[in-house]
């Protein structure tokens, strides 16, 4: 079974939006990591990861978030996670403590609103 990850990258008011579709596991994690890195390289430090179409996430997938969050927060940026729908994904976010660490927004507008509030 080929478990692909498709990345949809866009921007809203200077906020980078990375929408994940499919499977984020050890094989696809590098793809996701590169996507975040190129947003940071482009100077965007506010990043929303939209998980509405994410079907699976493994520990390695979670690790990608962890690899950037410290650095981003230290420089005034952040990662917000939104739209988590798949039960398995939601379960992992909950048990891993991600829910507390990142805060899960209901959907994209809600996540964007969190940034607006923060940067006010």
């Amino acid at each position, binding site marked *: 079974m080929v478990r692909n990850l498709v990345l949809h990258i866009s921007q809203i008011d200077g906020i980078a939006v990375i929408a994940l579709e499919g499977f984020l596991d050890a094989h696809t994690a590098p793809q996701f990591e590169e996507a975040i890195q190129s947003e940071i390289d482009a100077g965007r430090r506010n990043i929303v990861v939209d998980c509405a179409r994410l079907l699976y996430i493994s520990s390695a997938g979670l*690790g*990608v978030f962890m690899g950037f969050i410290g*650095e981003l927060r230290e420089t005034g940026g952040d990662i917000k996670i939104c739209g988590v729908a798949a039960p398995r994904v939601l379960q992992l976010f909950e048990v891993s403590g991600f829910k507390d660490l990142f805060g899960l927004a209901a959907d994209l507008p809600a996540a964007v609103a969190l940034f607006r509030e923060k940067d006010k």
Partner: protein
Amino acid sequence: MTTGFDLTRLEALLESAQLLQSSLELKPILKHLLRTVMGRLPALRGMIAVCRREGGSRVELVRGAAALTEGSVFHEDSARQAGMVLFFPIGSPSEPVGVLGVGGLPSAVKPEEAEFIEALLGLAASVISNAQAHEQAHIANRLLDQRLQELRALLDLGRGLAAAFDPEEVARLVGYTLAGRWAISRYTVAAWKENHPSVLRQKGMTPGDWPALQEKYGACVEARLTPEGGLVLPIRSRESPIGLLVCGPRMPGVDYGEADLEFGAGLAAQAAVAFEKAWHLQDMLARQQLEKELELAAGIQRDLFPSSLPSLAGWDVAARNRQARQVGGDYYDVLPFAGTGPEDPHLLCVADISGKGIAAALLMSTLQATLRSLLRRESSLVELASITNELLYATTPANKYSTAFLCAVQPRTGECRYVNCAHNAALLLRAGGEVELLDGPGFALGLFPMRTHQEREFAMQPGDILALYSDGVIEAQNPSDEQFEIERMKSCLRENAGGTAAEIVDRLFEAIDAFAAGAPQYDDITLMIVKRND
């Protein structure tokens, strides 16, 4: 919930096992490990250091800790200062292949989580070792490949250069090899040697002539990099510089490395040998060409000397010429005036032409042709000398002239007339043993456009001997730089006066050789002996 949690742990292990088995590259493996561990704890900071073969550990991967740099030497203290709080050995704790550190943890790590991480890292240890070995082998292979390629390039060049006999061709091959090996489009190959046109092959560089290049790079005795990122290599032959290779910068991001300098030095050494070989070959060909020309001139000259002398009734005449070099400057002849019988008057002539070689041979042939054509109608020696003088003066450069002793003999009566055109005084040995020197006024032929010669007369009696010669006879040297001198010539003539003319010539040459005692002959030696028998 607990079941789910355990399941994710199993899943993570399974996933890791799959990924680790499929990868031979170190970086992706490390990234995966750190991601997985940081994702599970979850940890804000993470790092992995891997033990190096040469000892110590190096930080290979850092996440969320700007104070740590990838590639630096791993010290646990500095890692702690950078925010790492927990360290897991990768592999057996007694002999780990590396260490994974984490920090920024929300709470203490649960024992079962630590157990999972240990299992994961245990799984990874052998894969990391393999990847390291693979990386080493890969690097070694790449280096080996590169060396092989360099060797092949040098071999190719050597093969090409072996067939290159022209310095320009050598420069072309060397240029191609440089450009191909380093993918450069700008280069200069230059080489120079005394008495050879300098070689300059340039591509994409500001055309510079020799002085400009030498001013810029003249002091270059060993390979050096230029400020523009190029490379200058001297071509040296027996320690002296004979050329330069100037290479432009390589592709962006590629610099000339240590191995490149070695390759360049090898190439320059080959170029040096090839240039020297090509020049040497050119010299050899030029010399061969010159020798061929000289041979030709010598052949012409041999034909100018009479193959046999005419016989004069009641007289005995013999002559010999020995050249110092392949093509000499002396000439002798015995030519009839209007009539060609043994009793008809004849002209005896010994001449010494300035210079040697082809030019002298040409002047000699002019002199001979002039004398021959004039003799038929002109019996006055002064006229003969004057007309010849004018002709040679008009047709030859100022530094080409000839001294000559011209003597007309009447075989029947023994009456003789002569003009001496700045030549050695002829030596007349009377039957009674007295010696007379036959000199007279007058410049060499072809030197000045003036009539300066005077005709003088004398008579040959039976038993008298006349010797015409060139300065090579009396100036022949021995190893002590002494000269043969006219006195030795006189004694030799007296001692051998009873012999035939040919015998006297032989004896005189023997005497000169005995005197010279092996010292080199610097000048042509010409001798004509004329003896009146009755």
